[in-house]
């Protein structure tokens, strides 16, 4: 299965590069003065958050595509992106509190962004649960597409919520227009990490897609 092998290679390279990110972030990037070493969690937390959300948007787009084309490959991609997105979301939800405890003094706060990530996670879990609860592949794909589109449409509202309420959460630091406040070496570490997480997303999705293909093939064989 060539796409499976490709996916495995990409993932292997990504994991190797991840080790590189670890070394760079932990040993070769300056310590942030006010937050200390814990701030370095930022280098894994934020790229994961970006992909957790992007994966959901991709699920939404794929879902729209699916309803128009009824192409099972599109549905397979949506399922893959959802699963990988859930993993990244879990990373954000766990590293967030670990970063928050030393900095804000509390493991959890109903801060807008943490809340956002929590229910991004709930959207993902709902999507995956629905998929597992529907036996017929056609209905499963259609239903998942409906939930996927609704989920993706909710994301802008959630974003509005985040910016409407002042919060404990560090305000966007990397993409602030006109005033990038992240010093050079920190920025490059962050960008490196973002690249690696992108590669991880691709590798994981390709593998999951291949597994989906294999399983559907098996289901088809079993029916005969």
């Amino acid at each position, binding site marked *: *299965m060539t796409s*499976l092998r490709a*996916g*495995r290679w990409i*993932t292997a390279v990504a*994991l190797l590069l*991840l080790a590189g990110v*670890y070394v760079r972030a*932990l040993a070769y990037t300056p*310590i*942030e*003065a*006010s*937050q*200390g*070493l*814990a701030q*370095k*969690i930022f280098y*894994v*937390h934020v790229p*994961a958050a970006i992909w957790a959300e992007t994966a959901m948007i991709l699920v939404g787009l794929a879902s729209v595509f699916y309803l128009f084309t009824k192409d099972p490959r599109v549905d397979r991609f949506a399922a893959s992106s959802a699963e990988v997105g859930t*993993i990244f979301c*879990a*990373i954000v939800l*766990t*590293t967030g509190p*670990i*970063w928050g*405890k*030393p900095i804000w003094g509390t493991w959890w706060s109903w801060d807008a962004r943490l809340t956002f990530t929590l229910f991004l996670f709930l959207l993902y879990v709902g999507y995956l649960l629905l998929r597992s609860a529907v036996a017929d592949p056609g209905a499963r794909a259609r239903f998942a597409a409906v939930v996927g589109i609704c989920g993706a449409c909710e994301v802008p509202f959630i974003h509005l919520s985040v910016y409407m309420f002042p919060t404990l959460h560090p305000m966007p630091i990397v993409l602030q227009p006109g005033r990038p406040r992240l010093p050079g070496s920190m920025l490059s570490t962050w960008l490196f990490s973002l690249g690696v997480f992108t590669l*991880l997303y691709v590798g*994981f999705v390709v*593998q*999951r897609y*291949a*597994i989906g293909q*294999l*399983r559907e093939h*098996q289901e088809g064989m079993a029916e005969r």
Partner: protein
Amino acid sequence: MPQVPPPPPPQNSGYMVAAYVLVGAILIGYTLSLYLRARRSLRP
């Protein structure tokens, strides 16, 4: 005015280590899960 040195950064490396270990564990765990599931699907 005498120069006052800025306070040293707080000692919280434990959290950093915990987070990085956790992220590694999750990613490697998921890689393993994908590997095993693919193997199960490839087995006739």
